[in-house]
């Protein structure tokens, strides 16, 4: 169990800043997801922890040990690559045993540890196969076993699930999480998939343009995104510009008066998640109720998405239970409602 701390870590390239003063404390045994779109600096951050990218500024400590100046092979991190990076000329067992060989572990002990690691990822039968004889999911397990067998101080995962199909992705996600818990490992996981990050991590750090925009539990990120970017990236599709006119009152630029919670005094945007919008039956009331015309309908199975054109200008996207949406028709006039607590107040500016 090891704590990992990034303290004001930056990476500057000749013409750009890839990572900009990232500070992050990852408590021992916690699973952290670095979430963001491609180019946000999340992979660079991970590679700085692994030691493949030199930090321009800042300090990285693993278990209190300053590793900023240490080369990758002295850091004792277990890294799982996006493309797995299995050694094609070595068998599964030899791949998994590589780190032990490098540490000079005696043969017998190494063999036993490799066997345990393979058992953990349920691959003991395939120990003598070569990587190219394995399926993508199996290769992924080998990569995981190889990173785990060295008992790393921190497990680093660089989009490890992105090359798997949807079903396998779910399965591996659960398995990685279970292994990390069982071994009480500190882990950093890089992904651009919000659902994946929320499902697997204790803490999510949303990154944008080289900076960490928000750190919190999945619930905190989801319920109270602190910036417009975090809100949009985590699925707040409906954003209405305007201003707070009184505690709990927001007036949009096109004159709509909306209710929000009074706790946040400022904000030039009011955001609502599509799934928080509900179809109001005639006569029902809600903190916020707006009427409009259905302009598009998409049936997705469990839910349906409807786009509703408000007379004042903006369109709202609502995600409704499919059985409710079934009665809707294009062009129908509907009333959408949401509670004041679902109104998210955001600053328009980034950062």
């Amino acid at each position, binding site marked *: 169990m090891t704590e990992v701390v990034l303290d004001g870590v930056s990476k500057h390239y000749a013409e750009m800043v890839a990572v900009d003063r990232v500070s992050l404390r990852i408590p021992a045994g916690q699973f952290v997801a670095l979430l963001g779109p491609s180019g946000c600096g999340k992979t660079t951050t991970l590679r700085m922890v*692994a030691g493949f990218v030199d930090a321009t500024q800042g300090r990285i400590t693993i278990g209190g040990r300053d590793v900023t100046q240490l080369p990758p*092979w002295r850091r004792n991190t277990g890294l799982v690559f996006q493309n797995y*990076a299995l050694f094609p000329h070595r068998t599964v067992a030899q791949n998994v045993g*590589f780190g032990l060989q490098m540490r000079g572990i005696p043969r017998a002990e190494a063999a036993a540890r490799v066997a345990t690691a393979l058992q953990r990822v349920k691959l003991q039968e395939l120990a003598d196969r070569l990587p190219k004889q394995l399926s993508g999911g199996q290769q992924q397990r080998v990569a995981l076993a190889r990173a785990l067998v060295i008992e790393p101080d921190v497990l*680093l995962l660089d989009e490890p699930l992105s090359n798997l199909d949807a079903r396998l992705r779910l399965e591996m996600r659960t398995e990685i999480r279970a292994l990390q818990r069982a071994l009480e490992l500190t882990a950093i996981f890089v992904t651009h998939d919000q659902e994946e990050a929320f499902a697997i991590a204790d803490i999510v750090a949303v990154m944008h343009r080289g900076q960490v925009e928000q750190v919190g539990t999945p619930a905190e990120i989801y319920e109270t995104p602190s910036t417009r970017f975090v809100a949009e990236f985590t699925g707040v599709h409906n954003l209405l510009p305007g201003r707070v006119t009184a505690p709990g009152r927001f007036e949009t630029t096109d004159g709509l008066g909306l209710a929000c919670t009074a706790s946040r005094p400022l904000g030039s945007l009011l955001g609502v998640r599509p799934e928080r919008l509900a179809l109001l039956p005639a006569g029902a009331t809600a903190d916020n109720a707006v009427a409009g015309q259905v302009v598009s309908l998409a049936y997705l199975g469990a839910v349906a998405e409807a786009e509703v054109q408000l007379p004042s200008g903006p369109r709202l996207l609502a995600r409704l239970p499919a059985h409710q949406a079934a009665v809707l028709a294009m062009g129908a006039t509907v009333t959408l409602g949401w509670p004041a607590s679902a109104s998210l107040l955001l600053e328009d500016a980034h950062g």
Partner: protein
Amino acid sequence: MGATNPNRTGLLAVPAGLFVALFLLAPLALMFRYSLNRFAPGEMMEQALTLENYGKFLADGYYQGVLWTTLWTSGLATLICLVLGYPVAWFMARTTAPRLKSLLVIAIVVPLLMGNAVRSAAWMVVLGEKGMLAALVGALGLGERFGLLYTAPGVVIALVSVLLPFMIITLQSVLEGVSHSLEEAAMSLGASPRAAFVQVVLPLSLPGVLAGTSLCFILAMNAYATPVLVGGPQFHMMAPTVYQQVSKAMNWPFGAALAFVLMSVTLGLSIAANLLMQRRYRRWAE
């Protein structure tokens, strides 16, 4: 194109195939037949079915010496090419800046396209008794008249310079295929750069090492301009000897036999090396 019959598409290769048959295979067959004839001074040769030309090669210490010189010169030059070329190829394969990479490729390829005559001429100028090297050695006060022209080391140096681009290009293309993330994986598992190289990069690049050494060895074995120009009249390698027999001595049967010895030794060694490698790496090298 979907409508064309893929069996008929094969007919497009017929002219090229006939051309090879007519201008390569038939002449080789004819020359092989000649190698079984008997040399008759004055009238070129007389029809026979004898192995005495090959026997002469085996019996005559001079020609065995020529073959031996050719073998060790080529082997040494190839080995030096491998040792010098590998780091350069690795450096090129790991260079990510596109401009630098193009520049490096051009720097290696341009000399390759200049021909052996011009490059050998340059080495004559460098290695001669009044050459650049001698001037340099003299200026440093290390000795006078330091010439390597018409010596075996001179030929090896010139051969290395002629063959090195082939080695570098071959190794580079294989090393490009060894993903950098494999090296990183090794390092993240505790391997120092040296260990990552020995355990991962080197084994994965062996097919390229084999391809590069075979190519260089074949080219060295058959080099003509370099031994003639840099080696001079006293340094004998196989290719010039074949030329001398066929074109100057007009001893076609023996010249033909020498040519076949040269070809068999060269191709035999390369094929043997290939088979050896294939057996060892069949499992993963596909």
